[in-house]
Each structure stands twice: as structure tokens, then as C-alpha cells.
């Protein structure tokens, strides 16, 4: 029987040198998914996750137990990811980052492994990162990773209504950008589908709140 999360965290606070590492291993897949989905780049995601884990390690004593340990960890990871996203936006591409990419290519390691992701997921991830960060975080948790709205609200520290609102706005913004990816089940390929996609892209403008006059 594995000790519960809270027990591991308590051991960590009491000085057990391995307890926190165990906690990380236990939840790393989900935490990783949050980071890599938010940042879109494995390298950035690993940096964010490492920052978050070190931060959680140090701040464990201030965890008050009013939420689940996993919720607390998720919150730290998503905040670290959003911090990194903001920094990336402020300094889009540094030369050393370019260099790292080139190094990776030279060493035969393509950074984002193209075989591991479909075109669709690359596109979706790229579009997702153009959303306002609060909308992106909500969509990553709720739509991509399937967290219940209540859990997402707790992780993000906002009300459920706010999560729903952010998800709705984010989906509306994504819609025209994803129109070309949308699989329309039962619809024959060809002009019909193309026309329909075009109409979605043209008529549903992102962020338009007022509605079009007809």
C-alpha cells in the first residue's frame, strides 16, 4: 500500500530526503502533460516543471492542506508554465535558443519529435498558444486534459463560472483557426466541405462580441 500524497508531503517536510521525489514520480505524467500542453515545447516544459518542482519542494511547509496535494502541485506547475510563457512572449527567440536548436539538429536530435505528434496536434498546440493565457490554461485543463471544471477552478484559483467563461471564449477564438482541421463526420470531402469551412472562418471572427448584422 502506497502512502497517500499528504503523508509523503509530511515526510518530506519532516526531512525525508526521498519523499518529494516520490511525489514527483507519482504525478509526473499529469504534471508534464499540463506543462507541455501549455508551453508546446518539451524543453520549455521541462524547465517549467523543474522550476515548479523545486519551488514546491521549498514551499511544502506552507502547504495548508486545504486542497489536495495534486491540486496544489498542478497550480504550481501551471503558474510556472504561464510565467515561462510570458517570458517567452517578452523575449520571443534568443540567439542562444536558436543555437540550442541548431545544436540539437546537428547532433541529430530534432527537438520536437515530429513522429510523436500529428500535424493536427502541432497546429492545435500552436493555435492554443496564441490565446490569452488565462483562456489557454482553462482549455488545457478542461478540454485537452479532461479535468472537471470544478478541479480546474481549484487549480487556477478562480470560480467555476470563470473557468467556463474562459473556456467558452477560448473555444470561440480557436474555432476559425481550427476550421481547416475539423473533421466533419459524414460530410463528403470536396467543395461542399471546403465551402463550409470557409464560411466558418469568415463569419465567425475571433473575439467579436457584438454579432454580425445580417
Amino acid at each position, binding site marked *: 500500500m502506497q502512502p497517500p500524497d499528504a503523508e509523503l508531503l509530511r515526510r518530506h517536510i519532516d526531512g525525508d*530526503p526521498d519523499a518529494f521525489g516520490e511525489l*514527483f514520480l507519482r504525478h509526473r505524467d499529469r504534471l*508534464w502533460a499540463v506543462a507541455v500542453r501549455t508551453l508546446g515545447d518539451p524543453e520549455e516544459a521541462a524547465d517549467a516543471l523543474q522550476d515548479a518542482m523545486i519551488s514546491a*519542494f521549498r514551499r511544502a511547509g506552507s502547504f495548508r492542506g486545504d486542497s489536495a496535494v495534486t491540486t496544489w502541485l498542478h497550480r504550481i506547475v501551471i503558474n510556472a508554465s504561464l510565467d515561462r510563457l510570458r517570458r517567452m512572449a517578452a523575449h520571443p527567440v534568443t540567439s542562444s535558443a536558436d543555437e540550442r536548436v541548431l545544436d540539437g539538429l546537428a547532433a541529430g536530435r530534432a527537438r520536437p519529435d515530429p513522429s510523436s*505528434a500529428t500535424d*493536427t496536434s502541432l497546429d492545435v498546440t500552436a493555435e492554443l498558444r496564441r490565446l490569452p493565457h488565462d483562456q489557454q490554461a482553462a482549455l488545457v485543463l478542461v478540454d485537452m486534459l479532461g479535468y472537471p471544471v470544478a478541479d480546474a477552478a481549484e487549480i487556477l484559483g478562480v470560480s467555476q463560472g470563470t473557468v467556463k467563461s474562459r*473556456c467558452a471564449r477560448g473555444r470561440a477564438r480557436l474555432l476559425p483557426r481550427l476550421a481547416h*482541421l475539423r473533421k466533419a463526420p459524414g460530410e463528403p470531402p470536396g467543395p461542399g466541405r471546403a465551402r*463550409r469551412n470557409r464560411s466558418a472562418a469568415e463569419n465567425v471572427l475571433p473575439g467579436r462580441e457584438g454579432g454580425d448584422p*445580417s
Partner: protein
Amino acid sequence: MIKRHVSAAEIARFSEGDIRARKAARIGSHLAGCRRCARVREDLARVPALLASTEAPPMPEHLTARIQAALSTESARRASLDAGPDSAQPERRAGGWSWPRLPGMSARAAGWAAAAAAAVVVAGGGTYLIVQGQGGGGTSASSAAVPSGAAHRTAAGANVPAAPAVRGTGQQLEYQRAGKTTEFTPVASDKNYLPAKLAAQVNTTLTDHRTPASSSPAKAAPLATANLSPKAGSGRSSRIGGFSVGALEGCVSRVSAGAMVLLVDVASYQSTPAAVIVTAVNKQSPKEAWVVGTGCSASDSDVLNRATLPPGG
């Protein structure tokens, strides 16, 4: 029915119940009679499934290992801090990273050490000089900045604080430590490290690159002025041994994961190009030697071997 079409944002919020009742009623009746808006609603309803259908790449093992290593380092740091009030408390310095202030070291000396980060790393009660080395083997591009074959065993100097950060010589590199940019200068010992003798070999390298205990930092010579070549700043793409400078910097940041870097030796491991990075959390903690392959970078540790050396010494 409303004549005006409804925006996608409003339809999405309507679907989420995120719209006031009266307006929701109007939107509902519009949707009932407007094919175009109803279609937008259908499309919106598919977005979650589309997002859910994307595959998240699994976490690469080496990244897991890297974070585990960082947590281990953090554990060791915590243990040593808990060990007693005399433990080296990191001292925050503006614009630099935290240098542990060692017993017997004046605040001024600690400050000096921080300023001279490029030349000296203090650990274990001794002063390690990180020797700028061309060595014989492997360095080539960087010789544009430094005469080939020149191996400057620098003795650190009082005027070091004046030394500017020199990027681009291919010699004086930077790594990230606790969010701060810190300098290091790799050596090139030309050694061929072997698994069975790793700890002993690393200890020898450390000893070779350490000044006598009596050598006070204040007497040490400045960073090799050869570093301050006119080419400074032009050589960011140069290589040291089998490593590109950029990758090596990222690698050292990655592997050290917040610990002090005592030594970076660009050499060989089992006859293939590799680097040995020696880190320590502080004076009391054991030193760790990491052997990394040329694939090591900010994104990939490429650790080939690892050994723990006794603290101090």
C-alpha cells in the same frame, strides 16, 4: 427571433451557461431559427473533442532524470543547511548568484569571489582554479581567440572585479544558477576518463587545478588577459572539444541544477569526446562528478556516468 447573428463567443458562453437568463433566451430562440448560428454552435461543440484528441508527447526519460537530479540536489542542500548554523548559507549578492560564505572567509573575500566567478570557484575549503585550457586535443575553433596550445593556469587577481564579462572567446562561458547567469571556464585536461577509475581521476583533476591552500584570492592574477581578445563577442558558435559553446553552457546549467560548478573538463570518456562536470551544493555536501556526452545541452543531459566524491578535500 433576433435578426442579428450571434458571435461565436456568445454562442460558446451560451453553451456553457455563462450568459444572463434574458439574453440566453434571446440567443436560444435565434439559434432555433438560424442555420448559420446553429452550425457555429455545432462546430464549437466539437472543439473540446479536437483538443482532447491531440496527443501529448510522453515525458522523455532524460528529462525525468534531470528533474530527479535537481530534487536530489535540493535535498542535499536542505540536509546541509539543516546540519548547523555554520553550514554555508548562500549569500545573496546583487547581480550575481549566491556564493556560499565559507568559514573564515571575510565578507569582502566572499564578495570578491563572486566578482571573480569566472576564474575561481570556491569549494571544500580549497580554491579551485578553473583553468582555461586549449589542451592539445579537440579545441580548434576557439583558438582564434587564444593562442593555440596556450594553457593559462590563472592565478586570480585583485583587479579581477574590473574584468568585463567576455562572451564569445569560446573560453569564458556562462551557466544559469538559481536564475542567475554565472561564468565558468572549462579546462581541457586531455584525460580519458574510465568508468572503473572515474572518482579517482576526477579527484586528480580537481587537485591539479587547485591552488595551494595558502594562496589567498587577493594574490591571484587577473583572468588571463588573452581572453580579452578583440574577437570577443564574435565567437558564439565556436566549439570546445566535441561541444559547441552554446550546448556546453546549457549542459552545465542543466546538470548543475542550481549547485556550484567546481570543474568543467572537456576531455574524453572511454575514448569518446565527453565532459566531466563536478558540482557541489556547498562545502559540506559531497561533490558529484557527471560525465556527459557531446549530446548534452540545455534540453538533454546525456549523462554517461556519475560518481560521488567525498565532501571537502
